[in-house]
């Protein structure tokens, strides 16, 4: 019965670890609820705590700035940001991810959550975005207008129709009466931008804010047909939020004058 020895020892060790872990877990859990509860009552109207914001990848620069503004304005509050494609975020939220605020790059993904009854109240549109042609700084294919993208030999990269920027590209294509034959249909606008910035592609269709955010790595060429496909960005409180007060305060900042100014600075249009 020698083989029992190690088993018993292992079990005992596991049991010891478990009890030690439980013992260690106990006190901090109880003390941590103390300050949080006290904080929210003592602040008297000033919202505090943590707000988790799920935002479309294209909002990274603006929301990072707005989040630090928010934290400075509301001492005791903390904004946790998570950036990804809008449909990824919508899927995560519908699977129970702990988000307080959702900012989508299109109305479709917001509608998905609204239809599923996962939002608190109605969403607010806070920004718009349009497409722009991005070319490498040297503009090797001498692109000047949208029609130039259809010239043979020009390597154009766009978003796939399944993602918001691709749907916008399709609309613009139809509006311009130009048929593109892209060398690649990427699943995110970041990938399109990357292929242009690295010089792999001669041109790509991205958002005007992406061009602005990329600095001098790409050059932007605006075109009139872009106005046919305006992307609207909605923001809303998630129904399962545990801190709806703070979530509402953050949304107020984004949709207010300060948010407008930051967003406009990044190239976003008014809703």
């Amino acid at each position, binding site marked *: 019965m*020698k*083989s029992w*020895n*190690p*088993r018993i*020892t*292992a*079990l005992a060790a596991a049991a010891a670890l478990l009890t030690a872990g439980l013992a260690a877990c106990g006190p901090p859990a109880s003390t941590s609820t103390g300050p949080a509860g006290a904080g929210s009552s003592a602040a008297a109207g000033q919202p505090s705590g943590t707000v988790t914001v799920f935002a479309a990848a294209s909002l990274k620069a603006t929301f990072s700035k707005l989040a630090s503004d928010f934290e400075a304005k509301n001492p005791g509050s903390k904004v946790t940001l998570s950036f990804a*494609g809008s*449909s990824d975020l919508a*899927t995560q939220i519908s699977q129970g991810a702990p988000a307080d605020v959702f900012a989508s790059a299109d109305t479709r993904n917001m509608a998905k959550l609204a239809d599923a009854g996962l939002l608190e109240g109605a969403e607010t549109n806070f920004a718009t975005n349009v497409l722009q042609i991005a070319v490498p700084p040297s503009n090797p294919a001498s692109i000047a207008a949208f029609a130039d993208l259809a010239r043979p030999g020009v*390597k154009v*990269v766009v978003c*796939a129709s*399944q*993602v918001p920027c691709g749907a916008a590209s399709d609309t613009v294509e139809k509006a311009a009466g130009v048929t593109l034959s*892209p*060398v*690649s*249909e*990427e*699943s995110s606008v970041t*990938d399109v931008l*990357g*292929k242009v910035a*690295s*010089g*792999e*592609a001669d041109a790509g269709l991205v958002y005007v804010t992406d061009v602005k955010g990329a600095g001098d790595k790409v050059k932007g060429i605006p075109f009139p047909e872009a106005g046919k496909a305006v992307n609207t960005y909605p923001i809303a409180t998630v129904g399962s939020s545990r801190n709806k007060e703070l979530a509402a305060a953050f949304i107020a900042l984004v949709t207010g004058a300060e948010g407008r100014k930051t967003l406009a600075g990044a190239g976003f249009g008014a809703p």
Partner: protein
Amino acid sequence: MDLGRGSGYHGVPRWVYAIAAAGGVFVLLPLAAMAARVNWPQFIPLVTSESSLTALGLSLRTSAASTALCIIFGVPLALVLARSSFPGQRLLRAFVLLPLVLPPVVGGIALLYTFGRQGLLGRSLEAAGIQIAFSTTAVVLAQTFVALPFLVVSLEGALRTAGGRYEAVAATLGARPTTVLRRVTVPLVLPGLASGAVLSFARSLGEFGATLTFAGSLQGVTRTLPLEIYLQRETDADAAVALSLVLVAVAVTVVGLTYRRPGQKDQRSVPAGGTASGRMDGAR
């Protein structure tokens, strides 16, 4: 603690089974959960859509091509690493194995700066009229990059456990190095080569990050099955899940075909007749 039980030891402590079962469940449960989510009535239409079939065909073709490239370059690499010694050998092995631990997207970026239009070799290739970016060739290169270490590791292990005795005998009998390689070494390590090739194929089939970064995504040209799944997920979760299951089925079939006999004992057959059966790792 004394765990030894004397002769004929092949008992495993019972608690190990419990943990092993937990490990197995950890791998199998997500697969079962995915299978449970499949929209079975729509399964056939979903996986036989034109874009799905194109992606599957492309995946199988590119994976076969990259496996061939892995064999062409991996066999000599494994031979050099296992049978010779030279300064910097350990460093070479470390670098050859690097793609095993590298995030694939990093591999994609590295390939972009090598074969891309502005890349190290890409510029000369472009001047010669060869364009790799956004082509099926780029997919194959990305897959080969990530899959090569699997073949090299398997084969080097097989070569080392097989030892050099038969080769030495063949050489003393007057066989020249190329003859020894062809008639003795390769037949001897054929099982190791086969399992390495299968692993490479499976890894190529699943390749995603490097392809997305380096090759782009265009139906029929560069959009392999994993990329198609990633894209379908945006709009049609049912299609993505159905295709994922197809990929799992293909991978299980491919790996199962060669990995079904890990416990077989070495037959210790001399490869004189050209047949080498049995596993080499029992020889230790």
